[in-house]
């Protein structure tokens, strides 16, 4: 067992034992599951929309170079500055440099998983720049010194009581009660002045519109608008897979994104940014930077993982995942949790370190069933498992077990002879048809009984019945 694997197991074990966490996850995820089901049922033709969305994404990914160039050309024409980053480090360097050029002391950031992926909050901190998270849930997570546990609800692991005591200790004017309205008011008070005094605003992007060079950001709190409008400089960080040919295509995806994420028809705020402030505009940033981030994405194309690039970060796969629902997002240890995280974390952080994530899945297929862009997540997880096997990352004991078993499975006569003996031995441990404990079966019998093998196998019984029948 590698150190990281045991870390994952430890985290998962602790999470499973944590009843408060379980209640918090269940509350949000089960609501999301129900709302999504209603929203999808109301759509005239979900499967058609899904295949349309899938085709749009596949088309863009197959013609990535073309759309990247088109986007860059149009963005530059609108007055934006476009930067290219191959790695996470490069991307956060570029962002920090822009902040330094602007002599920024304080930056505001609206929720962006890519920002987390490239380690931007940390890079800003190292550069001595204050980074204020403006999404309510991100604000909570930042105050608590934690990381997001869900890509749509970063603070879903926190109970209202925990948030109340957090705000009480961290806000200048603490909330007057545990009521949601009071908590929101308290956060708003705390954030409002920071919005207006920030030097740079940093956002992510839900879509990059190639034919106009515009960037589309959706939120439910309006914090992205306050993050990106008042400061003099607006930086967008976006993965290159966010490209779509035109606004029409963005809307096809947007309809699916919102329904899959929250079950709503549309987000409260859907904003398109196209270039910096123009001469007659009332407001807007003077500088508009777009950092296009690869960070392993083109490698995914080369590695046969291109289907993952369709992901629109809706979170439906984790809301419907039996494992995520038990362990929550932090157990996964990467930026992205749940099924999509189990595919992405090995790409971003290395398969060797995170080889357990693709295994921590029952391959039940529910995630692929709900994914609005039809990503075959279990297939990709299987792919990662076999890559890990080939690369020699699997623990030797697993390899030995499977290899020995396979030697028998490939030799039917031997297999039946050995399994006859094994059944006899296993039956020694049975009482009333069940085994409560047996050497080497502790991981099974720790939590449940093992039904005893039959005294005679089907093959044995069948052979004797066959003989009795005299044929």
């Amino acid at each position, binding site marked *: 067992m590698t150190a990281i694997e045991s870390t994952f197991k430890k985290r998962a074990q602790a999470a499973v034992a944590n009843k408060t966490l379980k209640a918090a996850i269940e509350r949000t995820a089960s609501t999301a599951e129900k709302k999504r089901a209603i929203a999808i049922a109301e759509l005239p033709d979900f499967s058609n929309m899904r295949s349309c969305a899938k085709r749009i994404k596949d088309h863009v990914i197959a013609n990535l170079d073309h759309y990247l160039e088109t986007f860059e050309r149009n963005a530059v024409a609108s007055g934006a500055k476009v930067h290219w980053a191959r790695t996470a480090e490069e991307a956060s360097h570029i962002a920090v440099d822009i902040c330094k050029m602007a002599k920024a002391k304080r930056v505001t950031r609206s929720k962006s998983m890519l920002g987390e992926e490239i380690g931007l909050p940390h890079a800003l901190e190292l550069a001595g720049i204050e980074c204020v998270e403006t999404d309510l849930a991100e604000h909570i997570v930042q105050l608590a010194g934690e990381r997001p546990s869900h890509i749509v609800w970063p603070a879903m692991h926190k109970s209202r009581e925990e948030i109340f005591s957090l705000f009480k200790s961290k806000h200048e004017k603490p909330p007057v009660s545990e009521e949601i309205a009071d908590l929101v008011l308290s956060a708003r008070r705390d954030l409002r002045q920071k919005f207006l005094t920030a030097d740079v605003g940093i956002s992510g992007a839900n879509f990059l519109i190639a034919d106009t060079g515009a960037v589309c950001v959706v939120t439910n709190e309006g914090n992205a608008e306050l993050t990106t409008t008042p400061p003099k400089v607006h930086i967008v960080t976006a993965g290159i897979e966010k490209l779509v040919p035109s606004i029409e295509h963005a809307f096809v995806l947007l309809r699916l994104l919102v329904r899959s994420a929250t079950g709503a028809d549309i987000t409260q705020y859907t904003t398109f940014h196209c270039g910096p402030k123009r001469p007659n505009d009332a407001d807007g940033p003077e500088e508009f930077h777009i950092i296009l981030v690869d960070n392993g994405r083109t490698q995914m194309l080369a590695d046969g993982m291109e289907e993952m690039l369709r992901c629109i970060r809706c979170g439906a796969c984790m809301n419907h995942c039996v494992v995520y629902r038990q362990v929550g997002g932090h157990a996964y240890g990467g930026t992205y949790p749940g099924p999509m995280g189990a595919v992405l974390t090995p790409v971003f952080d290395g398969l060797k370190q995170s080889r357990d994530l693709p295994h*921590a899945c*029952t*391959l039940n297929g529910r995630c692929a069933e709900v994914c609005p862009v039809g990503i075959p997540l279990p297939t990709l997880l299987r792919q990662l498992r076999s890559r890990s096997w080939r690369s020699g990352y699997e623990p030797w004991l697993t390899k030995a077990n499977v290899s020995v078993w*396979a030697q028998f499975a*490939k030799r039917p006569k031997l297999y039946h002879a050995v399994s006859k003996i094994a059944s006899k031995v296993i039956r020694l441990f*049975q009482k009333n*048809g069940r085994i409560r404990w047996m050497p080497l079966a502790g991981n099974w019998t720790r939590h449940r009984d093992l039904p005893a093998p039959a005294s005679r196998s089907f093959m044995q019984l069948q052979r004797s019945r*066959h003989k009795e029948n005299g044929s």
Partner: protein
Amino acid sequence: MMPDQKPEQFSKAKNSPSSPRIGLFVTCLVDLFRPNVGFAAIKLLEDAGCEVFIPKSQTCCGQPALNSGDVENTKTIARQVIEHFESYDYVIVPSGSCGGTIRTHYPEILADDPEWTERAAVFSSKVFELISFLTDIRGISTVQARCEATATYHDSCSGLRELGIKQQPRRLLFSVEGLTLREMDKAENCCGFGGTFSIKYPDISNAIVSEKTEAIKESGADLLLGGDLGCLMNIAGKQSRQGQKVRAMHVAEILANMSDGLAIGEED
């Protein structure tokens, strides 16, 4: 087929030329833990006018290797299963996950092997899970069976999502005399088995199966049915540890009127 691996024909009657010839892949779990499911499958298939053969050379479909990432061994096992079963009109499997492995994943893993691509594709089109074969291919809509029980049906994931098995078992169960079907909450939720997952991540698996047994208890059923022995052993094992009195059986046993014996995990 290898000479020393002559299949054993089990069917006695129904040798009419029009009877489809079935190669029954009993699965390793049924072979070792629940032979009755194999006999139930034979009866159901014969009642549906099929001639059933049980190739001696069968072992396991290869899922433990496939799900561990051991592609080479999976390929060898897949080729072996294809060789031993491809001469039959149909290959029938009393399990959604083994059926799914053979039908869906064999062609995938052999796709890069030009000698086998076509062969695997042809083969996979003949592979069916038992219950869906009876209803969808043989057009069976009722069975002659009796079972006094209130049953609840767990939809195993591979059967449901890889093979589209949902209504087929329920439709046949409706014709079982004395049986009442009562749906549990979230019947489509995974039971936390996942093959080797249950052993690699016992605590997560336990948390998941505990929700399943809770839902079964809530349903008020006294009999749990399903189409996959792995899931049934997982759930029945948890129920027995919790001291629950719900019995567990494979759906084929009920449909074949072989439900008066011992349930899963009862002394034999």
